[in-house]
């Protein structure tokens, strides 16, 4: 990237907002600030920012709502949320809306600068399959992952998943443990036969009831198990972790 990105900081903490702006300006970026949601929306009208850092909890209009409204003006906007609070609902909502990440306060400034540097770089796309009979889960994965450039396939049953795995080699597969007819473990074992390279992550809402099945899946080589309601931040962390590892092994070959 030759062209330096333009950045906006949105935070009702004026000191933090100004400090971050000055620091990024020193790094050579063009920076604007806004101290509430309405002001941020106004700024967006006049300037297509490459990246917006936005406090998630602000008076009057919170970060997620501000993000939604900004998207109606600039659908391609890239937003990183900042939070001092464990406002889980807002965090999950922001990820569903497509926020690129969540920065915890006090913000690690080196990390923030790295974020800005990397924002325009090509991120590469992972091919992901979600196997679940619950449409809510499909939507969550689609919302969160496609907005980050990943390709998401959906299977409603074990049978469908196995058929899809025969068509394409998926990088990462999320499988609900308690699938009807062919359960999650059987689905996993069948897919493992077809494509041993796929990294499989089990999911379940029933930690106790599914404990044995999950244990067996882990014993057979499943990567980990996520418990519902899903924490999409963890999903993103895992996808990033697996994807980076895969890319590294590929580039080594």
């Amino acid at each position, binding site marked *: 990237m030759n062209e330096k990105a333009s950045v906006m900081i949105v935070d009702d*903490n004026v*000191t*933090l907002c100004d*400090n*971050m702006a*000055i*620091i990024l300006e*020193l790094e050579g970026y063009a920076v604007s600030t806004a101290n509430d949601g309405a002001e941020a929306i106004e700024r967006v009208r006049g300037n297509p920012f490459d990246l917006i850092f936005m406090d998630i909890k602000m008076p009057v209009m919170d970060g997620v709502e501000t993000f939604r409204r900004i998207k109606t003006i600039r659908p391609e906007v890239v937003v990183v949320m900042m939070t*001092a*609070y*464990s406002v889980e609902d807002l965090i999950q909502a922001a990820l569903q809306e497509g926020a690129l990440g969540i920065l*915890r*306060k*006090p*913000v690690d*400034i080196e990390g923030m600068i790295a974020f800005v540097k990397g924002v325009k770089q090509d991120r590469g796309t992972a091919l992901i399959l979600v196997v679940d009979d619950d449409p809510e889960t499909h939507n969550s994965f689609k919302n969160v992952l496609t907005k980050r450039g990943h390709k998401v396939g959906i299977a409603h049953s074990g049978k469908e998943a196995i058929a899809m795995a025969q068509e394409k080699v998926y990088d990462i597969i999320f499988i609900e443990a308690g699938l009807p007819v062919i359960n999650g473990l059987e689905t996993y074992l069948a897919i493992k036969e077809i494509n041993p390279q796929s990294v499989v992550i089990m999911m379940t809402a029933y*930690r106790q009831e599914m404990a*044995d099945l*999950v*244990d*067996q899946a*882990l*014993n057979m*080589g*499943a*990567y*980990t*198990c*996520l*418990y519902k309601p899903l*924490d999409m931040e*963890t999903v993103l962390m895992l996808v990033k972790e697996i994807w980076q590892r895969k890319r590294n092994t590929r580039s080594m070959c």
Partner: protein
Amino acid sequence: MVRAAMEGIALIGLDGNVTEANEEAVQMFGFRSEDELLGRNALELLAQRDRKRAMVDIQEAFQEGAVRYIECSLTRADGSEHPAEIRASVKRDASGNPVGFIGIIRGTTEREWSAQAAQKAREYAESVLDTVRESLVVLDAHQRVISANRFFYRTFQVTPEETEGQLLYALGNHQWDIPSLRELLEEILPKNTSIEGFEMEHYFPNIGRRTMMLNARRIYTEMNRTEMVLLAIEDISDRKAMQEELVRKEKLATLGQLAGGLGHELRNPLASIKSSAYLLNRLLEQPDPKVKRALDALDREVLACERIISSLLDFVRQRPPLQRRVDINNIVRQALSRANIPQNVEVVSQLDETLPAANADPDRLGTVFANIILNAVQAMPEGGRLIVKSEVPDPDWAAFSFADTGVGIAAENLPKLFEPLFTTKARGIGLGLPMVKTLVEAHGGTIEIQSEVGKGSTFTVKLPIRREVA
């Protein structure tokens, strides 16, 4: 003649009705006068179930002319039954013709009766006492054991032979010679008729450290004219542990709300301080050394604040473990290599390499081991040895022990170690071990501590390792 007899005597006519009876007989049947008894059918004076047999006996007495002994129960006037033995013989006139018979009734006397009743009552009481799931001991006035119930013998693993007649304090190698018990029995109880809910914690050689709830009551026995003490001993250790667990959980919840609110609230101003310090560092190209020192201090201390808040929030926000297939020995090794272990602490690693892979959250187990190692190191300010061991005591479990040669933990502090905010350290907020316990339990495991002041402590973490299902 009849009236002077010591036994109950009744004359019965050939029609089977009573024709004459002495005072004893009248009393035995529970009537107020002889008149009430006369004319009654003799068989009807017997318990229903005995009548048929009595009839046969009497007929045989008639035929053989011999004396028959009939054991039966009398039906008394009030309907109650009274065991008796009747000697029946035929009464004949001068020419030898039978005119009826004589029944000599030897009723079990009032005294025998009450002794029997007492025996029955005692058997009843004893069977009740033996069923009670609480230890009961009866002591004489000098704290000697008169008797104890079955539960007592079972709980304390002693026999009646080695218990009865012994001084309570001398029982089982003086395991009951407890100052607080002496005080209860010798000082408090004599001033009261009963004591309830007296709690006593004691180490018993056979069963370990237990908390006992004692109820004691003085009983005066009319018969022996002596005082006895009934001592009820209830083992409330488990209940107490549960209560303590509940208190711990409540404390955690309260702490969680407080910590959550406070920690988050502090992060905003911290963010301002941190970014200001960063900015100053950037803006001041060649700062005065004093300024530089102050800026470094700002950075460092903000980081310290962050760490405290993070540990607080991690503790509050308990997420399910993110399990992976891992070699737990590796997690131990990693924790050891990351730990800041001073030169004067020697680490001895005895890891069982046959330990199978297990499903666990490597990050959280890492936190667990790091905390235990940190504690061990801090317990050895003068240096020492840390022995780290892993074992597979049985196929389903792996045990990881960390034994230090440090200062040890005072016995009274042991139960409090896992309570949040309990700390004996000058610096520390008392969240390390409670978090360790919570994380270990989230893995379905347990943690135990053995410690001796001046010698050191051993922390043992046991984790379930499930085998592959064939």
